[in-house]
């Protein structure tokens, strides 16, 4: 069923031709064009990557190709044809024949892309059933199991009978790819297929897509992540605000980007740049290139010390599970300590215990040489402002009724007495984080993601804390905004000299900003050391696999690619 038809590339006609595709939403007067004049063509066995940040129109472009741009979308194109079929003006029935059959489509975040109330097998077999590709129930079951095997899901007979929530994130994504491959379509479109996954699962999903390409399928990969794309793509379109700003072969785009925006995107990726260097071209705070970061002098005083932290939670079944199990570390003054781990590793629980929002079941945290977690809340309260936090989702951490001005003014220490002084300090804070004072009477909901995170940072530094805990502070941001925020955090530390406890699942980001790194897995510390030690000479097998699975640039001269990176079956 999965016949490989690889002709020499020059003999093959274009499978998909897109000429001057535009998509707009809304009525004539208030119409908003989100995709403008996008053209490309694709041959079998080739992969086109469409890269861009949020709002670039990349997903809408992809969905327009299967006629699902949205209910109120108006799609125009000079030519839009797939495998000899003209897609313009296709009626519902026509589209239904193309979808699934000719073009497979994989969405991001399989947790919500698989119907949570249906069995995995039923979902995968749905396409086969709809297009009448199987004649009996038995054949359907066999095909579904074959597909699950194809995408490398262990125990396919059992998994087919399970519900999506019983599968791991990586398995779900692979099941979703299996569903898209069910009818062996000539073109597979994958919209951010790796975004919600942990690095190891990400590597598996990518390997699967790459394999599909080598089987002679055409592939369109939509992603915000340049590193992911560099691995698989033959050609790249860089989109920004609905328009293609640059196109070219992967080698050209990653090796010799012409457009300034492409360069900006590439520069913003932490794994491409020397550690601690500036990632963004924005000119906030310090402008000179900072000196390379030295290993932290061990003579500096310890501000925060966690000893043998244990925290157990009751699972849904009533049994106790240790989310954090015997975690110890110390944070020195002016140092950035990175905590890396995949979801469920207990890193955020550590943060909550350090913040004394959660009491450890065993062990304790000492702060500035004195007791911290063991104190009564009343005694701790006056010292709480010395430890600040920056969350992943700043919006939910702001009172929706408050303006930026009020949020910042409220977070000032009570030493600032007069209202004039408070206002001066608020303006100073806005200046420090590079925000205009016109934002003072805006509410958080009215700000962009990057602006919100800057307000969150301003709030965190307002009381002059000794320690700032950053819990996935850039995970929800676009790569260029992420670069600016990381630069800002670096600048602020140099100016103000506080310590960071930097928590992230993203190894590249942690490597970029941290002096020392702790690697956590299932509640335990599996590795710790200076950033160089961790990356050059990781002690644990797990750290090695994390580093290996890290998406990185194929064309990047700095880091040579190890051939074992994308080996399949890392379970």
């Amino acid at each position, binding site marked *: 069923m999965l016949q490989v038809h690889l002709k020499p590339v020059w003999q093959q006609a274009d499978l998909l031709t897109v000429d001057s595709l535009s998509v707009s939403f809304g009525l004539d007067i208030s119409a908003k064009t989100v995709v403008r004049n996008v053209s490309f063509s694709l041959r079998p066995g080739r992969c086109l990557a469409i890269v861009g940040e949020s709002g670039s129109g990349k997903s809408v472009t992809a*969905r327009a190709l*299967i006629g*699902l741009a949205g*209910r*109120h979308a108006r799609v125009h194109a000079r030519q839009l044809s797939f495998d000899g079929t003209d897609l313009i003006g296709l009626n*519902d029935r026509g*589209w*239904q*024949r*193309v*979808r*699934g*059959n000719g*073009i*497979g*489509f994989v*969405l*991001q*975040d399989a947790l*919500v*892309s*698989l*119907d*949570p*109330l*249906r069995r995995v097998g039923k979902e995968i077999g*749905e*396409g086969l059933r*709809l*297009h009448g590709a199987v004649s009996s129930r038995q054949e359907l079951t066999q095909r579904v199991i074959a597909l699950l095997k194809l995408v490398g899901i262990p125990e396919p007979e059992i998994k087919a009978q399970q*519900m999506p*929530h019983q599968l791991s994130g990586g398995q779900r994504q692979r099941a*979703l790819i299996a*569903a*898209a491959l*069910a009818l062996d379509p000539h073109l597979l479109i994958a919209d951010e297929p790796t975004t919600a996954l942990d690095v190891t699962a990400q590597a598996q999903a990518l390997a699967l897509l790459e394999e599909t390409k080598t089987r002679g399928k055409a592939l369109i990969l939509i992603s915000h992540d340049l590193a992911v794309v560099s691995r698989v793509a033959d050609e790249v379109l860089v989109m920004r605000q609905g328009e293609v700003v640059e196109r070219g072969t992967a080698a050209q785009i990653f090796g010799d980007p012409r457009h300034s925006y492409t360069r900006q995107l590439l520069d913003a990726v932490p794994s491409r740049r020397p550690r601690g260097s500036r990632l963004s071209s924005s000119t906030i705070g310090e402008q000179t290139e900072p000196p390379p970061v030295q290993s932290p002098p061990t003579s500096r005083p310890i501000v925060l010390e966690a000893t043998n932290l244990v925290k157990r939670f009751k*699972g*849904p*079944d*009533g*049994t106790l*599970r240790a989310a954090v199990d015997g975690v110890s570390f110390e944070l020195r003054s002016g140092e950035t300590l990175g905590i890396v781990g995949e979801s469920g590793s207990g890193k955020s629980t550590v943060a909550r215990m350090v913040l004394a929002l959660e009491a450890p079941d065993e062990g304790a945290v000492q702060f500035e040489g004195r007791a911290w977690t063991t104190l009564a809340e009343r005694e701790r309260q006056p010292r709480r402002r010395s430890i600040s936090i920056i969350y992943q989702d700043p919006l939910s951490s702001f009172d929706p009724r408050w303006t930026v001005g009020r949020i910042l003014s409220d977070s000032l220490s009570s030493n600032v007495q007069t209202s004039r002084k408070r206002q001066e300090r608020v303006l100073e804070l806005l200046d420090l984080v590079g925000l205009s004072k016109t934002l003072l009477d805006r509410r958080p909901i009215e700000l962009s993601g990057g602006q919100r995170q800057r307000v969150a940072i301003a709030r965190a530094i307002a009381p002059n804390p000794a320690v700032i805990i950053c819990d996935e502070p850039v995970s929800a941001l676009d790569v260029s905004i992420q670069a600016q925020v990381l630069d800002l955090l670096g600048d602020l530390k140099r100016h103000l000299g506080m310590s960071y406890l930097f928590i992230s699942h993203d190894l590249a980001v942690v490597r970029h900003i941290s002096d020392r790194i702790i690697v956590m897995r299932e509640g335990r510390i599996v590795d710790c050391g200076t950033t160089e030690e961790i990356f050059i000479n990781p002690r644990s097998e797990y750290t090695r696999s994390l580093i290996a699975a890290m998406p990185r640039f194929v064309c990047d001269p700095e880091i040579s690619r190890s051939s074992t990176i994308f080996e399949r079956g890392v379970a």
Partner: protein
Amino acid sequence: MNGNEAVKRIARNPLVWFARRILSGAAVVWAAATFAFLIQCLLPGDRAQIIINVRSGNVGSAAPAELASINAQYGFDQPLVVQYANYIWRMLHGDLGESYQQHRPVAGIIAEQIGPTIALALAALLMAWIIAILTTLLIAGRDNIWSKLLSGAQIFLATVPPYWLATILLVVFAVNLRIFPVVGENSPMGLVLPTLALALELSGFFGQVVLNEFTRVLEQPFVTSARARGMSDLGVRLHHVLRHAALPGITLSGWALGKLLSGAILIEVVFARQGLGGVLVAATSSRDVPIVSGAVLISAGLFVLVSLIVDLAYRMLDPRMELT
């Protein structure tokens, strides 16, 4: 994870879950019984006097001897704790006390009348569900005049007082058009108008909730995934979206019971139907407390029962739910 497998299995055992639900349901009924008992004691004025008044139909002070005999007959002369214990004991034996006015056991009176009321409530629940789901399938995610009209109608129906709607139906269909019998018939035809009156209001509530959820689910990635596999719009609505949209609606069915019983009382009076409504209104105006407090107890019991059924139904539709 594997080490806890045994504990997990016990906690997930449907029987354990069921037993826990039965116990908590019994607690609710017990609390309702206590409430019903307290109502009888809290009655302002002398209870014996009220009973005499209810029986004789006039207002006036009774002779002390007469009062004493009533007090002894009903046990009002005993300490409150003893009365409470007796009340609960009798309740456990299915004895809900005796009507002041009718001199008959309350349990018997309610048992006689509750059948038509429950039939009416169930028919209305079913009809409300059908109306809500059909409307939703028709209008969700569409932007035309029908969807505007029907979603407006949902808000209207959810607000309309059921007795008023019942009156309009009565005037139009029974009095003017003479399609249905006017009042007081327990025939199937006689059930149509009361059911419709009761169901329309509820369908307005259900409809809004189901429509809301349906519209939300229509935009979910798994629906787009299904469309991208080549599924038709109707297929997506029936196979993927409807099940999700029904879940919050099903949770509402427990709450709907209270709404239905309240509505049924009113509508039975409008159509002069046999049922709890007439009995309760008569008991309320004559201050026949045992009947009213008996009804409180029964409806709490029904609520517990319906909640249990709703939970079971939910679990069957949503396998993600843990048994807690």
